[in-house]
């Protein structure tokens, strides 16, 4: 490919995109130089993924233009993007699990109708690539049998095999262990040396500082800053990202912890394949305190939360709720709720609500068999309606229409309704996962205030979040999880983002990269 010096490998001008009412990209200008790693950061919902999906031809922009090495291109579908030298490693890998690595690599770029020649050619090519980039992968292994980090390398190989000059990595570290992430960062360095333009999409500031040359910050669909990484700091980036001073200072007094409400002892949780995801975890949550669990997504927090709630079974250890051993008593989610264990799940739309139901039907989810909502054999419609109206008023859910389908509410209002439902049940322990994921700024503050108020009312709150600042702002004590283990505990007064970041990486006292 012939390149004029100084001309960016990829340039976007005025990209605009709407999904219905959501203005996902607002006149975005963006450019990346060849031979550089360019960070793209922003909170969830800032429009990063939409922008990258437009570059990859997965979505079409409503307005704007795209230039590659200074030439205007029309990327209307992924194959056009591939032809233009764009490769993308999606957050969820686009691999066929029961295919071999080799088969995955040639899919879509086969040479001729018969496979044998394509496979042979790819094998040679991949050997070269493996040598150039230090990307060793077993070519004949089934993808499903490979660790996640290796699967990611397969994705990168796929892009390189297709001749990608511009490589987009969407949240590549979300699923990686720290060691795997370190390897990835080395690889990014080699890609830069080979003159590739790498776009590194993430919402983790430390990674941006560690590997990028320049960084673009997005907020609410628009680019708010573009700077050289060397000339900025974590704090500055973070402020730009959220558009206000970081470390949201949630108004709260000191915690006054009482008796232990939730006591977890040596808890182990295995996934369907029998792999331990939570490895012998022990901790307590006392009345009147918020305990935060920090960690990179995928380090066992989700499994821990679901095991506590009774959604997945634990394989070892005990969970005591006010002294009652939930595991030994074999209490399911329903019984645990009955004992005062409420749960705001991490993935609201998948688990916490039924999108097709009305608000009032959602307001009784999990509590539908309570006497309060039933009259004899029938559901008490008056009580259900009144209960929903009360919750909507108390938690400022808008619009306050109990008949409205839940899917028609904004993320923040959905979450407020879920929170209202769980807190209104007057639990002694509340489990909260990612309380502000996909929630607008206004609702975030409201939700945070509710959690603090619950704490002050003497309830025990266990908060799981991948948003460090949320943990720092809310929790009274912070536990850090890494690879299924609790690697440390910090009182919130002593916690800093840097300190927690190191612990989340699983290494005490030394950083990586």
């Amino acid at each position, binding site marked *: 490919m012939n390149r004029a010096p100084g001309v960016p490998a990829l340039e976007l001008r005025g990209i605009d995109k709407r999904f219905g009412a959501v203005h996902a990209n607002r006149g975005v200008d963006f450019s990346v130089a060849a031979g550089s790693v360019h960070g793209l950061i922003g909170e969830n919902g800032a429009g990063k993924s939409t922008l990258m999906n437009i570059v990859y031809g997965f979505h079409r922009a409503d307005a704007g233009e795209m230039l590659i090495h200074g030439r205007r291109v029309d990327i209307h579908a992924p194959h056009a993007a591939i032809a233009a030298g764009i490769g993308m490693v999606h957050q969820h890998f686009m691999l066929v699990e029961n295919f071999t690595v080799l088969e995955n690599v040639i899919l879509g770029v086969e040479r001729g109708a018969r496979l044998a020649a394509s496979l042979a050619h790819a094998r040679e090519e991949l050997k070269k690539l493996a040598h150039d980039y230090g990307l060793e992968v077993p070519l004949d292994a089934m993808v499903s049998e490979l660790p996640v980090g290796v699967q990611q390398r397969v994705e990168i190989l796929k892009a390189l095999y297709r001749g990608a000059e511009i490589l987009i990595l969407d949240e590549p570290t979300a699923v990686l262990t720290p060691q795997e992430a370190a390897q990835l960062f080395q690889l990014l360095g080699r890609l830069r040396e080979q003159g590739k333009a790498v776009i590194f999409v993430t919402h983790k500031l430390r990674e941006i500082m560690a590997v990028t040359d320049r960084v673009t910050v997005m907020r609410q669909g628009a680019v708010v800053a573009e700077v050289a990484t060397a000339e900025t700091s974590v704090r500055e980036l973070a402020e730009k990202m959220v558009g206000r001073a970081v470390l949201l200072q949630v108004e709260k007094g000191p915690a006054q912890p009482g008796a232990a409400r939730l006591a977890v002892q040596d808890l182990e949780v295995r996934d369907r394949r029998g792999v331990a995801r939570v490895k012998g975890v022990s901790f307590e949550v006392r009345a009147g305190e918020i305990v935060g669990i920090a960690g990179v997504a995928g380090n066992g927090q989700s499994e821990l939360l679901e095991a506590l709630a009774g959604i997945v079974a634990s394989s070892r250890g005990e969970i005591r709720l006010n002294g009652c051993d939930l595991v030994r008593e074999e209490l*399911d989610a329903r019984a645990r709720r009955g004992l005062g264990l409420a749960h705001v799940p991490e993935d609201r739309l998948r688990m916490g609500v*039924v999108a097709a139901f009305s608000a009032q039907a959602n307001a009784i989810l*999990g509590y539908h068999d309570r006497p309060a909502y039933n009259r004899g054999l029938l559901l008490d419609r008056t009580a259900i309606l009144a209960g929903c109206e009360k919750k909507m008023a108390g938690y400022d859910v808008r619009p306050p229409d109990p008949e409205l389908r839940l899917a028609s509410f904004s993320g923040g209002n959905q979450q407020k309704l879920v929170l209202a439902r769980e807190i209104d049940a007057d639990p002694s322990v509340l489990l909260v996962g990612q309380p502000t994921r996909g929630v607008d700024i206004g609702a975030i503050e409201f939700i945070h205030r509710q959690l603090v108020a619950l704490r002050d009312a003497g309830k025990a709150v266990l908060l799981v979040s991948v948003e460090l600042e949320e943990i720092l702002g809310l929790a009274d004590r912070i536990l850090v999880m890494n690879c299924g283990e609790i690697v440390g505990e910090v009182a919130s007064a002593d916690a800093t983002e840097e300190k927690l970041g190191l612990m989340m990486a699983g290494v005490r006292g030394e950083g990586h990269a």
Partner: protein
Amino acid sequence: MSATAKLPRWAELGLLPLVNLLAALVLSGVIVKILGESPWAALKLMSAGAFGSQEAVGYTLYYTTNFIFTGLAVAVAYHAGLFNIGAEGQAYIGGLGTGLVCLWLGAWPFWAVFPLAVLAGALGGAAWAFIPAWLQARRGSHIVITTIMFNFLASALMTYLLVNVLIRPGQQSPESREFSAHAVMPAAHELLAKVGVTFTATPLNLAFLLALLAAAFVSVFIWRTRWGYALRVAGQSPDAAVYAGILPPRIIIGAMLLSGALAGCLGLNELMGSQHRILIDFPGGAGFVGIAVALMGRNRPLGVILAAVLFGALAQGGSQLSFDMPKVNRDMVVVIQGLVILFCGALENVFRAPLARVVAMFGNRGGEE
């Protein structure tokens, strides 16, 4: 972005099915035209055949009864997120239960036989639905495939029983002996005569009222009870169900038992109400028509009743049509059934988006968004 455009509730439940039905009927008319007959004349003949006389109405409602039972069966399973293609087999085995009670307890008075016959029908249907349900719930076997297989297994079992066991001695055709007079559903004209109304003798019988009762029961159960709520949650989102402490396997089994029981009641109308014996293939495809009825009726009991009347009218009007139009036979009804399933089920999205635009043009003032 999404293909499922939103319609206001009244349009989703009323207008869209009507538009889909209209499309199916127009295409049916085209086929009649191709056959060389006038679609208008056919429509007139069919309406007259279905509603033109007491006899016509009686027969129409008699067919309707079958379709209400099977339509409800499909609808209940649908709300639990399950596609029950096995209503045919469940009706077959349920009918066996009803038939056996009628054969064995024929000497008992009607008031004793009647509840047992209902119970046996429901149990038979539920039992035949149980195995696919259990396999889906516990072993993850695709219920669509297993219920299809169970239709064939029911058919094989019943053929065996009728040919080798239940056959009336000295009889060639595989059917049981006739039920005794105690074990027969009171006919509508007899019941009406008791209150002084004269009605032509038709196969319409007490089972029709049972079907209406069943619809009312399903309506209350699905929308007004905590069990129905749990069933709908599990049908919409198994993950949300688990979160809420609802156990999807239990819902799968419970919903299929209810579904099978409803289908199993078909024998009350067909055998106990009309044929008065067990015979080969008495469900006659009503289990499959149930799919059309449920789709057309949007899985709402009232909708199921209305759709069942429509299909009852088609069945009755269709046989009238085949008498009067030499080039059209009863199979035309089956074609129309297929077209209704096609347009109300598989192609429902085709008209949704245009309809949403039209509705939006006239101002969006529906109940729900």
